[in-house]
């Protein structure tokens, strides 16, 4: 009988199960990061295209979600730190080699336009909500915030300066949002020891996926037919790019060393195969693409269905990559 048995003294309850140190909070944080990057990208991009008045949802209203989910993401990240009371050490150092370091800095810098952008449009947001969703309970809160900001000492001056230089801010925000979107992938791909993550294509792939989830959310939230069909087409293009990247990711793995080949096997016959190909690729990319094509061809399909599927696909994709990546490794026994 062929025997290969390896027993490691590290297999004690405190150590081996806990070396899979990243879990749900990190996956959720990567999802929020990508979504926020996409929302900020679209708002700045269409502002620069001069669409502020024809696409109010994209440019003025939806960006209010970005700072909320960035803060939520940061809270998840802090919750995941084991030495949480020392988190401020992140902001005493900048280490160019560590993606986590420049990710932390990018998130902090992008918070400034992410908060100021929706604040500078508060009047328009309130007007938009009154016109379209007059029973929304947020209106009162937003009006209160709006009045408060006008009474505060320095903030109105900053807002005036911000509004005067909005085009410049938009250019900077586009740059930062792309860095943020790529960062969510590069954070994982920097780890040589986890072959499934260790591919440079993860950065562009996570960026595309993040922007695609943002397009889906905007498509869902908008009530303007033109805006919706624009995002439908954008999403179709992004889904095509994502599929292209996914195929190339596997081509790269399968033509690489044994550790990469075995990592790819986790998704090609291994324990993550079904969730990846059925739920992420099938339900999260291909099915919404088909539904969107049908919708553009004139079939009546509630837009919420493809939008929800894309958002769920993006979220699951991050969960699977985080968990499967940690199951991949080198032969050390």
């Amino acid at each position, binding site marked *: *009988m*062929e*025997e*290969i*048995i*390896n*027993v*490691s*003294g*590290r297999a*004690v*309850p*405190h*150590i*081996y199960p*806990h*070396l899979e*140190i*990243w879990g749900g909070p990190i996956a959720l944080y990567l999802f929020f990061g990508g979504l926020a990057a996409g929302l900020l990208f679209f708002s700045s991009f269409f502002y620069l295209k001069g669409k502020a008045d024809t696409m109010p949802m994209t440019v003025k209203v939806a960006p209010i979600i970005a700072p909320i989910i960035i803060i939520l993401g940061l809270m998840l990240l802090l919750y*995941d*730190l*084991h*030495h*949480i*009371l*020392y*988190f401020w*050490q*992140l902001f*005493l*150092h900048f*280490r160019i*080699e*560590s*993606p*986590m*370091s420049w990710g*932390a800095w990018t998130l902090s810098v992008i918070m400034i336009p992410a908060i100021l952008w929706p604040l500078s449009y508060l009047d328009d947001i309130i007007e938009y909500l009154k016109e379209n969703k007059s029973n929304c309970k947020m209106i009162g809160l937003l009006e209160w915030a709006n009045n408060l900001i006008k009474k505060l000492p320095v903030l109105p001056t900053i807002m005036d300066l911000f509004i005067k230089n909005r085009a410049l801010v938009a250019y900077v925000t586009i740059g930062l949002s792309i860095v943020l979107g790529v960062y969510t992938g590069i954070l994982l791909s*920097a*780890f*040589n*020891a*986890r072959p499934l993550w260790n591919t440079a294509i993860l950065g562009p792939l996570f960026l595309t996926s993040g922007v695609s989830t943002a397009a889906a959310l905007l498509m869902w939230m908008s009530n303007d037919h033109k805006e919706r069909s624009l995002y439908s087409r954008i999403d179709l293009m992004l889904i095509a790019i994502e599929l292209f990247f996914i195929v190339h990711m596997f081509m790269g793995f399968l033509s690489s*060393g*044994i*550790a990469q080949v075995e990592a790819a096997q986790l998704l090609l016959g291994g324990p993550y195969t079904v969730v990846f190909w059925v739920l992420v690729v099938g339900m999260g990319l291909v099915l919404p693409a088909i539904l969107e094509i049908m919708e553009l061809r004139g079939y009546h399909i509630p837009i919420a269905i493809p939008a929800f599927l894309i958002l769920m696909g993006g979220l699951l994709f991050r969960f699977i990559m985080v968990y499967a990546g*940690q199951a991949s*490794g*080198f*032969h*050390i*026994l």
Partner: protein
Amino acid sequence: MRYAMAMDTRKCVGCSDCVVACQTENNVPLGFCRDWIVEAVKGTYPDTVQMHFKSERCMHCENTPCVRTCPTGASHVIEGGIVKVTHDECIGCGACIESCPYDARYVHPEGYVDKCTFCDHRLEQGLNTACVDVCPTSCLIFGDLDDPKSDVSIILKEKDWYVLAPEAGTNPQLYFLK
């Protein structure tokens, strides 16, 4: 100076003395360890079954992915190539744990990441590491690779050796003698 360790897989009996010595010397919390024994059995029963033991710990690699990915610089390399963690700079993010091909790090119950230090506090006093001193079969050999007369330099010249996961490109400094 370049500290390194050689581990004779033919002499090791898997007694775990090195593990207990380290836990005692470094106040490693109960249920955790900085070094550990691996027992590997392979072959076809009953003809060619082989078993050997390895005493493993941080490899104190020359190319250190754990230091590279640390966002605060808590993971750093000191004199002699020893990889250490500054406890009050560590935020416990886990980036170094994810970047270690050998799974040599763990999260201390106090929150920071902990690992083998090659007993640098003992080296300062001219002593050997605790695991080396306690080993009953003398299968662990420690020393300076830059010194051609050190025990570890001599034995690595004389004997055939291998390192774990060389394809990870980390250039580990824990050598296993065949």
